[in-house]
């Protein structure tokens, strides 16, 4: 169910393109802001939580997820090079699972690890905040990678659709319409952070059991559906 050649091609495509710059830029920004906040404001658990929750988990993690998830397959479908994977005796689900694995790995490396590091810089993991947000970012990365990989298979405008979801739904509507937060990867992963983090600093709108069920369900369903869609992917039929 895992093909090392597909993984190698996907990995090189992800890190070789211009979009890889954003992969480096966003975590670098987070680290720079963290260093600045620590230097200017000193150690403050609430500030730490605001920054990790407001910027890292709410903005950076979904954006990295969009880049890693859609980037793992959408460019190949766009330029037609997916033909070279499809014209092989490979099971379609193994192509999807391999690409998902690479996307998750890249998303975690560029979002969960920087979040964890930023947490340590901000307050030295006081109240377990660095670990809490780091794990939340890692779990969110899995779900985002799966959802945006599916978007990459089903639509030619995967990046735009992904950005709309990440920025408009998760950030904007989530802030204005409380009910929308229940259907948000960000809130589900926050539920996990709330469990790990000390005190009442981290707050989620969703209970932990519901959050875990939804995270698993969305990840599995998106992956399964992506594999199905790849099986009947129609290539450049129109003349």
């Amino acid at each position, binding site marked *: 169910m895992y*093909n*090392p*050649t*597909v993984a*190698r*091609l996907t990995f*090189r*495509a992800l890190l*070789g393109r211009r979009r890889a710059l954003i992969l480096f830029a966003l975590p670098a920004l987070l680290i720079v802001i963290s260093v600045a906040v620590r230097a200017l404001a000193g150690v403050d658990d609430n500030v730490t939580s605001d920054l990790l929750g407001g910027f890292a988990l709410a903005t950076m993690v979904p954006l990295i997820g969009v880049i890693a998830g859609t980037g793992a397959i959408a460019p*190949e479908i*766009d*330029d*037609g*090079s997916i*033909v*070279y*994977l*499809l*014209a*092989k*005796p*490979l*099971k*379609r689900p193994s192509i999807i699972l391999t690409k998902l694995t690479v996307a998750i790995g890249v998303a975690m490396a560029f979002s969960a690890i920087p979040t964890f590091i930023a947490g340590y810089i901000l307050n030295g993991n006081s109240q377990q905040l660095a670990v809490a947000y780091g794990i939340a970012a890692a779990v969110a990365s899995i779900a985002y990678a799966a959802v945006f990989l599916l978007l990459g298979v089903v639509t030619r405008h995967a990046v735009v659709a992904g950005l709309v979801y990440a920025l408009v739904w998760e950030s904007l509507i989530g802030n204005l319409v409380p009910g929308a937060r229940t259907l948000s990867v960000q809130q589900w992963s926050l539920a996990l952070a709330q469990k790990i983090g000390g005190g009442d600093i981290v707050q989620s709108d969703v209970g932990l059991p519901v959050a875990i069920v939804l995270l698993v369900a969305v990840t599995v369903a998106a992956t399964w559906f992506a594999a199905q869609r790849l*099986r*009947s*992917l*129609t*290539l*450049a*039929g*129109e*003349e």
Partner: protein
Amino acid sequence: MTTITIDNVSRWFGNVVAVNDVTMSIGPGVTGLLGPNGAGKSTLINMMAGFLAPSTGSVTLDGTRIWRNEEVYHHIGIVPEREGMYDFLTGAEFVLANAELHGLPDPGAAAHRALATVEMAYAQDRKIDTYSKGMRQRVKMASALVHDPSVLLLDEPFNGMDPRQRLHLMDLLRQMGADGRTVLFSSHILEEVEQLASHIEVVVAGRHAASGDFRKIRRLMTDRPHRYLVRSSDDRQLAAALIADASTAAIELDWSEKALRIQAIDFSGFTELLPRVAREHGIRLYTVSPSDESLESVFSYLVTA
């Protein structure tokens, strides 16, 4: 695994019918799929390659359905028309990756062999995005040959190749056909198909227009009525003299154009007749131009024939 059978296949996209009730069978040897641009050649090849489901009918390889059956790729090699091909890899890395994806026991040796076959070993360590179109085409070819398939499908393989590369690819395909493989390539250029293919399938506007060896197709093409536009010093007298001969079928005096529209049946007879008649009657010819020599009109004649 050598025979692709297309049985009563139609394919439409929304309201547009791209392939209309086509039945044909592609066996060992080199077959040319000939037709003007937009005739449905790519759609047919995509269905044979398993990249597109037929709307109705079936496409099979020795009785096995091709759509949604990745096992057929053990036997099929594909050279797509599109250019996208992991440009950040070198030629050698690209062909090696293809060999690995096929699960070959010794992918390195297979890639090496395939690159040598297409004479690309000399540039195999350069990145693909530095290649010319002909070089890309040959690396695509190597990736399609790497698992030694019994069926090879090529969509417009000669596009963008220079004459020398073209001859080399033709030799290669001829050799593969002689080895008993099924080689199918599409083209919109008659001469290309004629030089290479022992068997020709013609599609026009989504329909299967003709099938046979190239002599038969050639005869169909040259024996069709030819139309000419002729201007002379005395159109009416020329028309009277020409219609007396059996090689002309119809002549019209076109007043708005101030010219004769002539329909000839016997191509070689008419080309010899026209100057002779003009000379005998002391008529000066100002314009002699064939009015329907475009490939499309040749093809559309074949459809109605």
